[in-house]
């Protein structure tokens, strides 16, 4: 036998083994016993193109999706020229959390929220805490439940939970599920909030906001470089979303996770604060949260407390009234302060509320109107 024959035989063996292995190990379509085909619903906000291709118009990416393929979010699949949401009624996480965890500080403080999240996301943030769901497809997550919008609303009502939240991963990517649940929840007297990266297109957003009471938006940075390098996204769509939400009247709060050297320069914080003040209003609460290593961002030091305090000072100097510091339990600015008399209106440590010094939405000390959604 010469070298050529030897190589031919080896190649043949490898080929046969690979095919056999692929056939033997091919994955089944079901996810935790639920067949994707039984649960998927036709997506909204897409257009059909030639050759069974489609364009999704839900978020800033406007994915061009060929037949049999999915969008960047991994949740919208083109089947025979029709686009489907494949995670409808298949949440990967259903939990009860304190509302302060969103964070949402001016919305029914010290209450619980029923939180829903699925697989998939339209961003690729390198520091995501929920990456095991958000950076995975439905099949990769595997562990999901089957909960219709009716099931969710009933669960919230049975446990006496006043609000439902769409969070953990980006809710845009399960839009139809969120929309139907939100509508039903409101009809049943429940509050509806969601936590977003702010990259939803205007039309679907406006449609959704009819059934939404509050939104927390991550304004991750104020440069396109950060959005591009660290989240594989863009800044402009987020700014548009913020304006749309603000104008709709839904309660809005903004979170900025401060990463050392990446998005914490004084100039950037000042520019961001100025924009919020000018374009949205100085009564939108802003949270500066401390970064700690997570997911792929494991080699970056945690945010210095001084940096967070500096960010707060800058935002305050630009006129922002309600600023808190998060992920730093015990810091004085975990609490909310009255912008008029500087007294503590909500005494808070991390997620724990010690005292709410307010009456009918006004400061308990000076009577200043504090914007938000308060208990009756």
């Amino acid at each position: 036998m010469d070298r050529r024959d030897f190589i031919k035989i080896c190649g043949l063996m490898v080929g046969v083994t690979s095919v056999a292995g692929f056939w033997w190990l091919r994955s089944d379509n079901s996810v935790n016993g639920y067949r994707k085909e039984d649960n998927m619903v036709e997506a909204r906000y897409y257009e059909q193109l030639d050759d069974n291709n489609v364009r999704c118009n839900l978020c800033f990416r406007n994915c061009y999706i060929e037949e049999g393929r999915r969008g960047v979010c991994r949740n919208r699949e083109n089947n025979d020229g029709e686009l489907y949401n494949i995670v409808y009624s298949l949440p990967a996480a259903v939990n009860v959390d304190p509302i302060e965890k969103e964070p949402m500080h001016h919305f029914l403080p010290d209450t619980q929220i029923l939180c829903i999240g699925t697989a998939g996301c339209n961003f690729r943030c390198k520091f995501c805490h929920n990456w095991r769901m958000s950076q995975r497809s439905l099949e990769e997550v595997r562990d999901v439940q089957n909960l219709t919008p009716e099931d969710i609303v009933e669960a919230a009502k049975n446990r006496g939970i006043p609000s439902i939240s769409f969070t953990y991963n980006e809710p845009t990517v399960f839009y139809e599920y969120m929309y139907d649940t939100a509508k039903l929840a409101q009809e049943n007297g429940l509050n509806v909030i969601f936590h977003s990266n702010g990259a939803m297109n205007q039309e679907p957003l406006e449609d959704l906001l009819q059934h939404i009471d509050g939104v927390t938006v991550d304004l991750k940075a104020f440069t396109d470089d950060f959005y591009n390098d660290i989240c594989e996204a863009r800044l402009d769509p987020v700014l548009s979303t913020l304006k749309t939400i603000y104008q709709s009247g839904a309660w809005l709060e903004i979170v900025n996770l401060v990463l050392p050297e990446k998005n914490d320069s004084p100039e950037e914080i000042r520019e961001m604060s100025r924009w919020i003040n000018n374009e949205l209003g100085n009564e939108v609460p802003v949270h500066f949260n401390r970064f700690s290593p997570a997911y792929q961002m494991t080699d970056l030091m945690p945010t210095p407390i001084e940096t967070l305090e500096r960010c707060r000072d800058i935002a305050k100097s630009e006129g922002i009234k309600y600023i808190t510091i998060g992920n730093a339990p015990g810091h004085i600015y975990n609490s909310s302060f009255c912008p008029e008399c500087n007294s503590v209106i909500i005494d808070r440590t991390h997620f724990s509320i010690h005292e709410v010094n307010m009456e009918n939405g006004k400061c308990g000390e000076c009577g200043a109107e504090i914007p938000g959604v308060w208990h009756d």
Partner: protein
Amino acid sequence: MVNAGNVELRFQGSGMTSKLNKTGNIISAATILIGFGGMIGQLLLIRVLMVLFYGNELSISLVIANWLLMEGLGSYFGGKLTNLKIIKSKNLFFVLFMIYPFSLIGAIILARLMSGGFIITTIPGLAMNLSQMLVTTILTIGITSIIHGSLFPLAAKLFEEENKDQAVSRAYLVEIIGTILGGLLFVFLFAWQFKAIETAFIIFILHLIIILLLINNFRLYKFEKPFKMAFILFIFIAIILFNPITDNLHEFSLSRLWPEGEVIDYRNSIYGNIVTLSREGEKTVLYDGNPVANLTNPEISWSEDYSYLTATAHENPENILMIGHGIGGPISFLLEHPVTNLTYTELDPQLLDILREADSEIIKKEFDDPRVNIVEQDGRLYLNQTKDRYDIIKIGDIDTETLQTNRFYTEELFELASRRLKEDGMLVFSLPGSYTYMAGELALINSSLYKTANNVFANSVLIPGDRNIIIASDKNIEISPDIFVERLKERGLYGRRFTTGYLEFRLDESRIENLTEKLILTTANINRDFNPAGFYYGMLNRISIIAPGYTNFFNIINNYRFEIIGIAGVVLVLIYWLLFFKSKNNEANRLTYLIATTGSIAMSFDILIMFALQSLFGHIYQFSGLFIVAFMGGMFAGGRLTYKLIKSKREEKSSYILDYLKKLEIGIIGMLLLFVIIVNLLREIMLLDGSLYLSAVICIILAILAGGVTGAQFPLGTELLPLIKDAESAGSTAGRLYTADLLGGWLAGLIIGILIFPVAGLVITILSLIVIKVSSILLIYKVLPE
């Protein structure tokens, strides 16, 4: 006239001998330096790259494997180069010998630059993904090790030109001397006394000295002896003492690695690299590149939660043992409870030194509190030796991603812990977790350790979170919010963060039940010292972050390991049959295969004995150093014995070589079996509180024997090959067999360390190695027809 530095041939006979001896000595010195520089270069680059790569077993194996692979390639090409007519071997040797230290310095700087985004698209602070790690190792290690690998066959050629007799064997043995010296000096001096670039410069200086001697010897030009020595000494002192070059390069490369902070302290301990960064009033300590402590404002969000939940789970936590990751919050928060004594073990004394200098109130209190007793020792070793009994044994935030750290989560460790706990004592540890999710690799690691704890203790409880907490005890564990509130109120600790609302969220019954059920339903193996399933799952967890596309591959290996081993075995047998029984002129291939398999086994011994040492005794740096000496010393002794044997049987027929090879093959199998038996015996001894030092001595002897049988084969192989393959020069022989040895080691490093051993355990691994060795014995015995 005799010029002592460059011996003129004024005296025939004795003068010629004198010249030859002089040349031989200098070539030997150069070859020693090849071994010395190579060992130090490898260890140095491993350290530098571990800071960039997160330092787990996967990345360590990648680095070592790439080094061996590239070194093997270099050796192969070096062997080919020795046969070139157009360029003399000695000139080539000279050039490559000069380039090597520069390539080492360049590799260190390039590695740090690449981590900062040079050449590859990455961002400082971002963990490199697998592809980036591969590219980085190829570009940094690749060039250095190819150059280094090519030096050995060239050196063998020079030995041959000086004296044909057993040239390759002599070169091999001399190089091992250098390797031993390099290993020793690195472990006991360079690793913690010098920065990486300083060490590389020292290698450069040594190369420079040898180069000058080589120039002198090869008669390129002359020096007066005193002037020459003074010149050499001057350069040496000048560069070591006045080294703005090394300092500047060092600072420049660090600034690219950590642009987010100013490096205010940089040191290498014997265990790792410790850097302190400063930014806006905050000082952060990075250990091997990972943030481990904030010195000004400790990160308390998690540490307070973990400590409070741990201490509150116990009715009366008076006596606590904490293993690792305690300073900077965890200890402080434990001490807020009614603790009368807290013992804290920390392996690295240099880390403790840095923490002592912190300007944080929290950290100062931890060191000054009279209740705290800090023990500078490996936690597992402390558990082995202490006679104290504790209410709580708490393991810090140590993950299972290396074989070394996985030792803290095995059934054997849990059994040891149970003997050190009081009747109602608890073991508490944390793992990668999630409030919301329990599936895939996360479920595997948690399930494995949860079940391992359940195997030892009567009760185990999971508290989900960003890190999951597992509490194990023989007594019933009560973690209801009501009980916690009551206990915290009794202790005067209720309020601030730990309120009823917070505890109801944190200890939500339905969440705990839901995720615990998923844990129980997940099929995961028990984690044991010699079946380190926890390590494999931890590695899987890491792969899901840095190389998510490969997660399925490693999952399949875990799920179908025996089937895959079977299929791989069948395919290998087929290839084996084709290669050795259907191809012509295969005798040289058989010998090469034999050396390659021995190289694999030597590397496997290296990994497994070191791992056994750490499992049984804990991480003791001096033992690691002694082990390196023992193993390499064994290789040298084995090689030297066979060298002497060959010399003594020079006049006999060469059939004795085959006889001895066969005996050594049997000897290697015997060693593998002995290894399994001894390691299991030692484990029983240690579990019965047996003598640490006796066990250590036994391990060292094992290392010597293992090195001996594996090292003895190479000289025999180099003696046999030219007899099989006509006109095979020393250079080609060295190139071929050294390449085989290295590639065997490469394969073992990659597959044994991160696949077979973690997935299949020690016994299966040893059996696999025995099968491999049997395959080479069959070739030697020619049992199967040609």
